[in-house]
């Protein structure tokens, strides 16, 4: 570091010695960006690519004013609103209004998740594994690592924004509106990143920081969903509690107003200031929430007990997210039915009202199943993380076979994901039964949720196969999760056959279609093959670390 600095200064002139709490920020920032350049590039390409394909797809599907009006009527339903936006410009639906309303939040959520992961990676992980101690012993200010981590995150978010804008400029959308849409996506991610920086000061672990940050994303999404259902065009106070609500209030391509981003900027600045205060109050390596002493004797019962203990928090958090989402969707059922009944023109598009409900719920059930699949991917990812950290060696040096080691974790993940889906179906059904006053919905929606379980198991199988066969690429399972989510929600916009690799495309879309036992068996068999290949692979390969 010193050599770089002196090489860069003019000969005979001594570079001013850095001092103050921010000393060294620039060098740390360069280091962080260098370490993250590929991760950021993959996110940027994925987000920009999805946006570009989706906008072109929407433009092709809804070419005439009549098509657009029908789409507007459909999207105005509460159930669709919960997953879309506040509905600016529905009276005169254009491609721009549709992009902002229906795609906007689905661009903002992944970028926000990227920001959470980046903040935990930059702010907490180096402190947890001791790297930061080495850095802080250099002439580096106390606030420099936090400042550099946040600046690195902001740079990555901006890089995604630039590529996203470039992608949107290739479409027929209005450039000014696209600029505002991208600015609002970036703003939401920055607010969430700043809130995660506060969380990073409270806890000792990158994992907990991640969980708190993702919880912020989840709560923010639900707040805006509730708000948008209650009051269209950002008239509900609920929407104004959510960073995504502020971003959506900009109404790109319709009202084109920048002022809601002032709220985002103020919130981000306040969070950063709070994080800066907190970082000055705590010692290196600690969080503000203290560690308590635990039991001196073990009650952890073998491999299953260990796996459960490791996965407990994650299972409960993901489970709560999956079940609450399902409950929210269930409660909106009556609104969907009322809406379809009041808009007879829709039956032309959707068939009779009974089928419309079925079609909409078929989509939601897959959405919930993708969430359960994402949980399964994290569970198997934990096994790989244990391997890389050397914790797996501690177990595998005991009389514990590799198949048993990985198999236990996969089995627990399969059990947890299945339980999540059944509970989700039950809660969704109960919500629908209550609001529709129709008890048969419980069985219908429980059956629909149960029907997606083979698909969830395929996601689990892909994760296992990657860990067993190509461990270095085990992170690729997230691309697969993102793929199943994208084709699940937007299959109608994408070229035919684009969803061929998603298990959910091969299962019957329930509750609309009858249960297809053959398909369920076939998809389950694929899942079993993938898990088997992974277990066989892990037995035959060298273990890392």
């Amino acid at each position, binding site marked *: 570091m010193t050599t770089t600095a002196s090489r860069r200064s003019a000969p005979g002139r001594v570079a001013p010695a850095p001092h103050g709490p921010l000393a060294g920020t620039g060098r740390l920032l360069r280091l962080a960006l260098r370490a993250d350049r590929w991760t950021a590039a993959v996110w940027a390409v994925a987000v920009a690519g999805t946006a570009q394909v989706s906008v072109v797809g929407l433009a092709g599907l809804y070419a005439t004013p009549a098509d657009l009006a029908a789409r507007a009527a459909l999207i105005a339903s509460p159930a669709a609103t919960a997953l879309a936006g506040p509905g600016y410009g529905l009276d005169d639906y254009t491609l721009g209004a549709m992009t902002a309303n229906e795609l906007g939040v689905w661009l903002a959520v992944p970028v926000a998740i990227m920001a959470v992961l980046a903040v935990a990676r930059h702010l907490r992980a180096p402190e947890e594994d001791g790297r930061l101690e080495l850095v802080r012993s250099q002439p580096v200010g106390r606030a420099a690592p936090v400042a550099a981590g946040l600046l690195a995150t902001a740079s990555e978010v901006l890089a995604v924004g630039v590529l996203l804008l470039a992608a949107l400029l290739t479409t027929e959308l209005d450039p000014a509106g696209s600029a505002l849409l991208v600015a609002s996506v970036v703003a939401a991610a920055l607010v969430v990143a700043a809130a995660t920086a506060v969380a990073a000061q409270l806890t000792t672990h990158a994992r907990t920081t991640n969980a708190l940050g993702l919880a912020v994303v989840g709560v923010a999404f639900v707040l805006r969903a509730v708000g948008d259902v209650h009051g269209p065009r950002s008239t509900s106070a609920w929407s104004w509690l959510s960073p995504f609500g502020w971003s959506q209030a900009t109404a790109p391509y319709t009202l084109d107003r920048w002022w809601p981003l002032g709220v985002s900027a103020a919130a981000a600045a306040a969070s950063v200031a709070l994080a800066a205060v907190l970082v000055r109050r705590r010692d290196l390596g600690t969080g503000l929430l203290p560690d308590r002493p635990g039991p001196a*004797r*073990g009650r*952890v019962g073998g491999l299953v007990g260990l796996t459960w*203990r490791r996965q407990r928090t994650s299972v409960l958090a993901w489970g709560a997210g999956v079940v609450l989402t399902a409950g929210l969707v269930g409660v909106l059922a009556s609104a969907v039915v009322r809406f379809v009944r009041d808009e007879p023109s829709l039956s032309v598009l959707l068939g009779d009202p009974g089928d419309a409900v079925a079609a909409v719920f078929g989509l939601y059930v897959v959405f919930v199943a993708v969430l359960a699949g994402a949980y399964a991917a994290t569970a198997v990812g934990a096994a790989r993380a244990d391997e890389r950290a050397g914790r797996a060696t501690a177990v595998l*040096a*005991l009389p*514990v076979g590799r198949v048993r080691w990985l198999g236990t974790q996969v089995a627990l993940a399969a059990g947890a994901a299945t339980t999540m889906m059944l509970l989700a179906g039950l809660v969704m059904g109960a919500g629908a039964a209550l609001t529709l006053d129709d008890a048969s919905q419980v069985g219908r929606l429980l059956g629909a949720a149960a029907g997606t379980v083979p698909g969830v198991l395929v996601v689990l199988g892909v994760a296992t196969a990657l860990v067993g066969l190509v461990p270095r690429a085990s992170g690729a399972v997230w691309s697969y999760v993102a793929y199943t989510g994208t084709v699940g929600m937007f299959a109608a916009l994408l070229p035919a056959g684009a969803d061929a690799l998603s298990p959910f495309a091969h299962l019957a879309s329930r509750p609309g279609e009858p249960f297809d036992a053959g398909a369920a068996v076939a998809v389950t068999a694929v899942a079993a093959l993938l898990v088997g290949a992974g277990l066989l692979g892990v037995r035959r390969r*060298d273990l890392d670390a």
Partner: protein
Amino acid sequence: MTDAIAVRGLVKTFGRRRALDGLDLTVRTGEVHGFLGPNGAGKSTTVRVLLGLLRADAGDVALLGGDPWRDPVALHRRLAYVPGDVTLWPQLTGGETIDLLGRLRGGLDPRRRDELVERFELDPRVRARAYSKGNRQKVALVAALAADVELLLMDEPTSGLDPLMGAVFQEVVREAAAEGRTVLLSSHVLAEVEALAARVTIIRRGRAVSTGTLDDLRGLTRTTVVAGLADAAGARTALDGIAGAHHVRVDDDRVTLAADAPALDAVLGVLAAHGVRSVTAHPPTLEDLFLREYSDELATLGVGER
């Protein structure tokens, strides 16, 4: 009785790097065997092959009479492993970790566990994320030493322990050896290996360059002799005539030299003839033996011969 560990011509490559290049290693049942080599020489890779975590590319590996790659579970019932860099589950306490590892093994002696926790002065109620490196290592040591096993594989087990705990470690390993257990001890603390090991193997770039008892190895090398003499200059001339006397140096009335074992008799005769006032002779320490194997590398590092 068969050897506890018998490795012949072991080869392991990672990509283009040859980590083990025809390694031979024999550990007799019941002995404490020192396994020495600098970082990157292949010690940990060898231990990981012995544990069946890595598959050998070539060569024969027999551990307790079995093949660790094919039959790890049965063999692991009879051995315990202590890594140099211990990572634990951050949310479990030390006590929970020890009991968990014991349960996965099929039980460990609770009295022995408590005794070891006390001797190593480990606080078992602390969560693993709050332990220092030394304390994490103590958790692994207690879990391994409380198990009823035939073989202990230890890969730099004391790298984070303070000298007091290092002494406790030596005592505990001696007890284990007295009970008839076999110990493979890889370590950078050469004094520790010298105190514990009956035989040692020194490896270099994935090959064993020297193996045997400490006495054997000492016999192959030189004893350092320092003598204060009445006629140092005269002794020097006489010593120069002895083939096995090396590096003879005279400072005032003091002579320093390194003598091969067969030449010791003649050297002492010359010294006696020149009026000995004081004399010290010490056999090479393990450190001397080790550094001798690496003398060319020391030279390139700019460190003179010892």
